[in-house]
């Protein structure tokens, strides 16, 4: 079967799955209601989103300098920073830092998914726990995320109860509060036993080297706070010049991500330290003694050179567009690869360099343009898809086909 035929079968199976459609129709309705009321409550967000678009446009053109600057800032803060040109290089750096036979607790990271970080660490002989509830479910189901922020958006509570019953060996009812409590119990000790905590970052300020980590569950605070080592993998598109810029990006991200105000935002700039005994700076007080940040290129600087497709790098990963896509509403993340819908298509072509997959996704887009109406930074999904189709069938100035 051709890649396209196989893919078409996959999305048609999804389209016939009533549970996906039901789960998504509920998610879409609640997303729209919540986001509308969040924007009404904090109307300055709309103007701030315009500023963020400008910040991102500029930052994407300067990714390499910003990565350099951020590395220097993190080193100044006594952390370690690395630039990985490729996905393999990023894996190698992380692999060498981790070694084997380690217990690792991980926060959810789409960049980690992109390079299959968890699978790689497991192959090296480590035990890895996804700590985000949705991602934990996905890991245990041996499935893949179906939404940027809600990876298990397609899994109803009955299926979660069945899964957790299998893990715990006791019969669990599909009671959401009890299921959440079960996950908490299963993971609680792991944070304190873990050798290493891992995360991504929602945005990074190059001037101070500060990582912003937005979350509601509290798993990222624990995973990046309790273990003695914190390793963060960051796509270079997450860099912006200043702490002030990063704050704006973060606020716009969480507002459009349906969070209104997130429970937690962690700002991490270096390892834990204290000077409380004789003013002697000592590392590893209560938090990690070591902070390692890997800035990964893996096709991003190449993508930044394309006048239209570079918009994919402006994406804040709020996931808002997905709720407006009529195809996503019936297929969920099956209309995607590492990322979803039009941005997923661009990523498949330019980052994963998988043209057949990219074509399958590009021709699944309706080019209806509603994603752009939702996008806080006005990424024009339809325009990107048409440019990508051109690149696929005609090649272009970048010499790629």
């Amino acid at each position: 079967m051709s890649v396209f035929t196989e893919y078409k079968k996959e999305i048609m199976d999804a389209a016939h799955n009533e549970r996906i459609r039901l789960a998504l129709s509920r998610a879409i309705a609640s997303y729209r209601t919540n986001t509308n009321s969040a924007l009404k409550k904090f109307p300055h967000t709309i103007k701030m989103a315009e500023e963020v678009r400008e910040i991102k446009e500029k930052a994407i053109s300067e990714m390499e300098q910003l990565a350099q600057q951020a590395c220097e800032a993190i080193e100044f803060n006594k952390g370690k920073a690395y630039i990985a040109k490729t996905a393999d290089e990023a894996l190698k750096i992380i692999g060498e830092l981790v070694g084997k036979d380690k217990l690792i607790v991980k926060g959810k990271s789409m960049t980690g998914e992109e390079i299959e970080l968890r699978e790689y660490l497991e192959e090296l002989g480590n035990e890895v726990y996804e700590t985000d509830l949705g991602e934990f479910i996905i890991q245990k189901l041996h499935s893949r995320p179906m939404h940027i922020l809600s990876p298990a958006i397609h899994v109803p509570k009955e299926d979660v109860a069945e899964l957790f019953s299998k893990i715990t060996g006791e019969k669990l009812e599909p009671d959401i509060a009890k299921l959440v409590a079960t996950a908490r119990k299963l993971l609680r000790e792991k944070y304190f036993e873990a050798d290493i905590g891992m995360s991504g970052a929602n945005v990074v300020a190059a001037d101070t080297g500060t990582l912003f980590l937005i979350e509601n569950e509290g798993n990222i605070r624990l995973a990046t706070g309790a273990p003695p080592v914190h390793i963060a993998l960051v796509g270079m598109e997450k860099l912006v010049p200043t702490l002030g810029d990063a704050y704006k990006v973060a606020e716009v991200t969480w507002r459009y991500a349906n969070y209104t105000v997130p429970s937690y935002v962690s700002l991490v700039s270096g390892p834990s330290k204290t000077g409380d005994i004789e003013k002697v700076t000592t590392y590893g007080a209560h938090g990690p003694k070591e902070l390692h940040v890997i800035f990964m290129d893996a096709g991003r600087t190449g993508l930044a050179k394309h006048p239209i497709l570079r918009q994919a790098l402006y994406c804040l990963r709020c996931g808002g567009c997905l709720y407006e896509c009529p195809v996503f509403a019936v297929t969920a993340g099956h209309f995607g690869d590492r990322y979803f819908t039009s941005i997923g298509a661009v990523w498949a072509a330019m980052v994963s360099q998988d043209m057949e997959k990219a074509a399958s996704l590009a021709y699944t887009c309706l080019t209806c343009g509603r994603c752009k109406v939702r996008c806080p930074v006005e990424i024009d999904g339809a325009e990107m898809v048409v440019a990508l189709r051109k690149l696929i069938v005609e090649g272009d100035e970048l010499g790629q086909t």
Partner: protein
Amino acid sequence: MDNKELIPPGLTYLADNIASKDNILGTSKEAGAKWAKELHLPKQMETMFFAGCGYQYNSELESLMSLIRKIDKSAVSTELTMSLAGFQKKLGIDASGIYRKVMARGSGADAQPLRDAVKVLDSLGVKFGYLADEEPCCGGLLYFIGLHKEFAKHAQEVYARLKSRGVKRIIGIVPSCTYTLRNLIPDSIDGHDLEVKHFCEVVSEGISSLELRYPREVKVTYHDPCQLVRYLGLVEEPRQILRAIKGIELVETEWTKGEWATCCGGGGGFEAVFPELSQILAVNRAKELIETGAEIIVTHCPGCIMQLKAGLKELKAGGVEVLDLAQIVAMAMGV
């Protein structure tokens, strides 16, 4: 270097029809122009009405789509369903067959939106012509599926033909053709100087002085075609027209209207690549629209009309009608 084999076959079939027959369906130009035979519209005019493939070949597209969908749902191999050309042969629905069918039917009873649009423009005192069998296909599909070089070449031919007929202004009616003529073709032409307007813009400018009354009291909802609302930015014009008609109560969806309207699932040849999925999306959109309690769904695009009709049929919502804005206006004018 090119990589055309990565374009799904349903789309290459439509693109080949544009290249070989100058229309997306691959039937004859005479069949497309049949609807206007008795209207005697001039072929040489400064203002030209651009009918577009979608409306001109609407009935053929509908029957072809319903066949494609049946096959896509059946157990026939997926490879085959992807190849429109392939099952066209298998089923004997070649272009000449469709052509014969259309000719046998007489004066193209299905192009009602076009005949009504002509009556409306006449009533507004607009002087215009129609190129009939010489009307070029706008070629927009080539652009949207990624064949930009072919589109640029086609754009030159379209422009040259329009200029050779002394055209200065175009009144488009299919949203995608109008967008192509107004926004895409100028990018391929040095010194482009054609003015392009959409039918609903012309109507909304001209109706304020008219007394418009729909034959009965009805609840009407409006479905925004993607290219009309998000590409051409025509949000208010259709609504202004509908509100100006006495007897019509405009009831709209709470969220999915204007720039937030949900696509009918028939965008840019999507229906030829994913016929069954396209129908699922049509049903979803039709459901959103009938929840308003409307008796008539008004829209303004041949693709949307086809999709929404299919969606309503699937929902067994027989009491709800789908009409083009041009039809509604003609009825309200009593022409």
